[in-house]
């Protein structure tokens, strides 16, 4: 997956988890929790969805890497290499 696809995959997961939020214009360099209402349970949902959709396991000590969309791209790029985007699942 390239950068755009990784962002799309994360935004799609967030849209599933927080369906009341507008995720159409999220800034990539600002913390997600500063832009939309996400609590710790939601964050665990994001991690679970990454595991279910892509088989990516994010250990607890790495959660901080997923704070922004840019952070997600940096952290997930190597893990999602060769995997195909799954949205709307």
């Amino acid at each position, binding site marked *: 997956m390239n950068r755009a696809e990784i962002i799309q995959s994360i935004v799609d997961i967030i849209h599933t*988890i*927080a*369906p*009341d*939020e507008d995720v159409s214009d999220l800034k990539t360099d600002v913390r997600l929790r500063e832009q939309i209402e996400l609590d710790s*349970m939601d964050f*665990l*949902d994001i991690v*679970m969805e990454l*595991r*279910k959709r892509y088989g990516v*396991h994010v250990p607890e000590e790495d959660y901080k890497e997923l704070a922004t969309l840019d952070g997600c791209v940096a952290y997930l790029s190597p893990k999602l290499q060769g995997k195909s985007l799954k949205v709307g699942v």
Partner: protein
Amino acid sequence: MMSLPRVVITGVGLASPNGNSLPEFRQNLLAGVSGVKPWTIRHVGETQAGQCDFDALRWQKRKELRRGTRAGSIGIWCAGEALKDAGIDLDQRDRARVGVYVGTTEHGNVETENQIHEVAQYQFDLSYWSHHHNPRTVANNPAGEIALGFGITGPAYCIGAACAAGNLGLVHGAQMLQLGEVDLALCGGVSESIHTFGIFASFRAQGALASHADPAKASRPFDRARNGIVVSEGGCLYALERLEDAQRRGARIYGEVAGHCVNSDASDFVLPLAERQNECMRGALARAGIAPHEVDLVSSHATATPLGDQQECEALRAVFGDSSRTHVNNTKSFIGHTMGAAGALELAGNLPSFEDGWAHATINVDDLDPACEVRNLVTNQPRSLGRIDTILNLSFGMLGINSAVVLRRFCA
């Protein structure tokens, strides 16, 4: 006996397989409309159940709906509708003085089954087990979701009482008002049980799961061909207040909780006992200060199991056999057994009889079982009784819990 404040019903919120408001529910009960439909659930396959269809997004955001349980969602719907019906704006109240008391037959089976099904897809790798499992399955979940949804900071918890739970919620709410613990009680019962295959499988294993070619005829209490329970989902919560508080704000009063009794068979895990049911009914009447012949309408519990109906009818004959005034009906014949909601929901369907004077029927009695003959059983067609002043609402449950609540037309 010590003098306790009088408690009245000032609002009704409900979700029934045949109606999402009291007027709609009542209309369908008087018109003989069943709410039982075909239902498919994993492992069990095709069966029949009463299913609710209400607009959950009226009272919940989509995220709350996703995060919570079906029982929580039904509870939130019922609480919102009850508050609206009662004309109560929580912003004008002290939310710490509101109590939420929700009867449940069981809670947690649905989510546990879902999670086991989920991890089975991953060879039981528990890293796929959801962090939502515990908050969804704790026994106070439905009440807690209501408290969260409406910002209620008073006591909010569930009361586990098998199929008597709806009545128990109501009784507990009345008691907490009488003790002065709260100023408003949202109380009754909810059930999400149609979403757990285990309930169906267990009733089937027990030989107590109903089936019929026509789902609308599957729930047939008192009929010779009855063959068990139709499991249904539903909910009903009442807004309950002390009479003086209700009068002070000019609230509409549906009726007065005049008496109640809860007792235990202490005899068997599943089989009911007419003798204790008899004592329970008489206990509630004594608390209300009335005799059997002063009861106009008995809302029976009968679930359409062969033995259960027989035992209840035996108790009814013993208590009301000499009363020409007392009529008996049954709501499960329309909507199936809404489990934790049953006591509250079945009472709600009969509450409007204080206004209209009608007893709704027990439908599907095509061939009355002689063992279920009771005086003035209202079968198949509603009956006008002219005036109804007193209702006795019965709910019994597994492990031998019995409950009876007396509702009286409100007279100042």
